[in-house]
């Protein structure tokens, strides 16, 4: 009975893992395809397509744009999210619930709608679409996330620690920079990296709000118009690799630190 359950568990988990990994494996495998079509059979192994993408200047500048937009928008999201979390967690403000709800609200709205709203507003105001407008859009979707993560990690224990700092003579900014921020660093970093990957991967806002300079997902999108192509596999594999590296960095930097003693 127990053995049967174990076998069933392994079989089920195995099947789901195959389902989850199937597209990734196919993607990466056929990025080495020595041929024009990224589908079976595998005709040989080549790095040709990787050479292609690294010599594609449009793709490379899209990559740089993506990194730029992701870093800047995540940084702003974290900063604004942290300040708001600090203000709402440490002080009593009128309509605090409403304020929290407002800051969280964009999280419950489809990015398509946020993008469309910004597109029409920017259009009406005569603001040209650029990486800046994309960045603004990305802050709108990442700010609630950063706020929620950081606000969620502000507990009563830290209030006492901040009190202790104040009691020992620290001013408002000193408390924040020397005590609160370092203490919350794990969650701030988690928020930053999560925002980074979301922005890095975001398509619809980037698609609607950019024009000449585009981010990587938008560039990949336009590559898709030429149909199935091992070059797309190659850039997809690179993006996957970069994301995994980011994940590893986050894991090592944020989660492997000794837990706060309680």
């Amino acid at each position, binding site marked *: 009975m127990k053995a049967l359950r174990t076998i069933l568990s392994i079989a089920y988990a195995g099947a789901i893992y195959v389902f989850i990994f199937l597209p990734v494996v196919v993607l990466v495998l056929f990025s080495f395809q020595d041929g024009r079509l990224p589908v079976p059979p595998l005709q040989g192994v080549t790095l040709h397509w990787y050479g292609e993408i690294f010599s594609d200047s449009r793709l490379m500048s899209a990559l740089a744009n993506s990194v730029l937009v992701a870093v800047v928008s995540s940084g702003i999201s974290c900063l604004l999210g942290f300040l708001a979390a600090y203000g709402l967690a440490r002080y009593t403000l009128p309509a605090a619930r409403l304020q929290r709800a407002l800051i969280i609200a964009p999280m419950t709205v489809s990015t398509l709608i946020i993008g469309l709203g910004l597109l029409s507003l920017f259009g009406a105001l005569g603001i040209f679409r650029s990486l800046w407008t994309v960045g603004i859009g990305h802050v709108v979707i990442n700010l609630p996330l950063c706020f929620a993560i950081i606000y969620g990690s502000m507990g009563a*224990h830290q209030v*006492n*620690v901040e*009190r*202790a*700092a*104040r*009691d*020992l*003579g*620290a*001013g408002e900014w*000193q408390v924040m920079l*020397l*005590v609160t921020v*370092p*203490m919350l*660093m794990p969650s701030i970093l988690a928020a930053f990296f999560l925002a980074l990957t979301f922005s890095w991967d975001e398509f619809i806002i980037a698609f609607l709000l950019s024009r000449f300079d585009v981010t990587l997902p938008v560039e990949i999108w336009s590559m898709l118009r030429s149909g199935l192509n091992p070059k797309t596999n190659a850039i997809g594999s690179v993006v996957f690799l970069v994301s995994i590296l980011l994940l590893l960095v986050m894991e090592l930097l944020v989660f492997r630190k*000794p*837990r*706060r*003693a309680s």
Partner: protein
Amino acid sequence: MTADVSIRNATKSFGTFKALDDLSLDIAAGEFIVLLGPSGCGKTTLLSILGGFLEPTSGSVFIGGRDMTHVAPAKRPTTTMFQDYALFPHMTLAANVGFGLRMRGMGRGSRDEKARGYLDLVGLGQDARKKPHELSGGQRQRVALARALAVDPDVLLLDEPLGALDLKLRRQMQDELKVIQKRVGTTFIHVTHDQEEAMAIADRIVVMNRGRIEDSGSPSEVYMRPRSHFSASFMGEANFVHATVADVAADEVTVETALGRMRLPKQSFPDGAAASGGDVTLCIRPEHFRDDAAQGRSIHIGEARVSDVAFFGTHHGCSCVIEGGPDTVFKAHLPQTSDPRPGSTISLDVNADHIVILAAEPKGD
């Protein structure tokens, strides 16, 4: 450094709830004061008001003769040692202890040296480079003490600092706290709900209940001559007997109780309570039943049937009911060598001087 503290008519309301109710208290410089009371009695509120984390709704706070009622925590000559220690988790012990000095603009070299000195004081000089999470509970508690003392406060406020420690460690830290307090001479105001802890460390215990001071005095005063029903029952076990004053003589008062007539020394009565016809409450500690052979005049309370016995090491704790008396259960402590058994009868006698007379409890409590 050290300073006296004076709290004058402090009231703190949270909505309709009065956490502090017109409370006044004077504390001498260098005194080790313990605020003792059950949770919700206002002791922590009082400590927060002294530390500057709360402002009283009315009334004022003077420290070293200066009005501090509306001064921010950082500007006060007080530091607080928090219940959860509130150590900075990302800083070394040296940085923790040196933080207050850093905020006062002291250079790295001299503040490290001073921090080291305070860590030595609490026996953690070797661990200056460690971080809080590497320490045990007792060690963290010591660091919190060192950090609070490092800025040379006049008054140290301790918010249930031993609450998180296990019993043995707590008793050990009590002794250390007391020794360190005597060494630095700073006024210590310590909050706890543990009466044994209070008796072990305090120069003076202030018993609080419902935002008011019920009693205050040295540990032995508060224990032996409590001034209120609450104080008597909070500080250890006590038996209470209702009594009516029947006759007042020159140095003796005769009272009528359900256990019969008793003659008690007049000085045992609180001021004004010894008027004929007045209601009082007699308070008898369980351990006072055992010294029936002691000197002084003994009062025979009655013969009691033992219903329950438990052995506590230092004594046998008996629950018993006085024969011919009311149904109330009496607690009596008998010597280790005695052998009380349920169902047996014991004779309860008490030295007349050991009976404490309290104003009668208001009805309906």
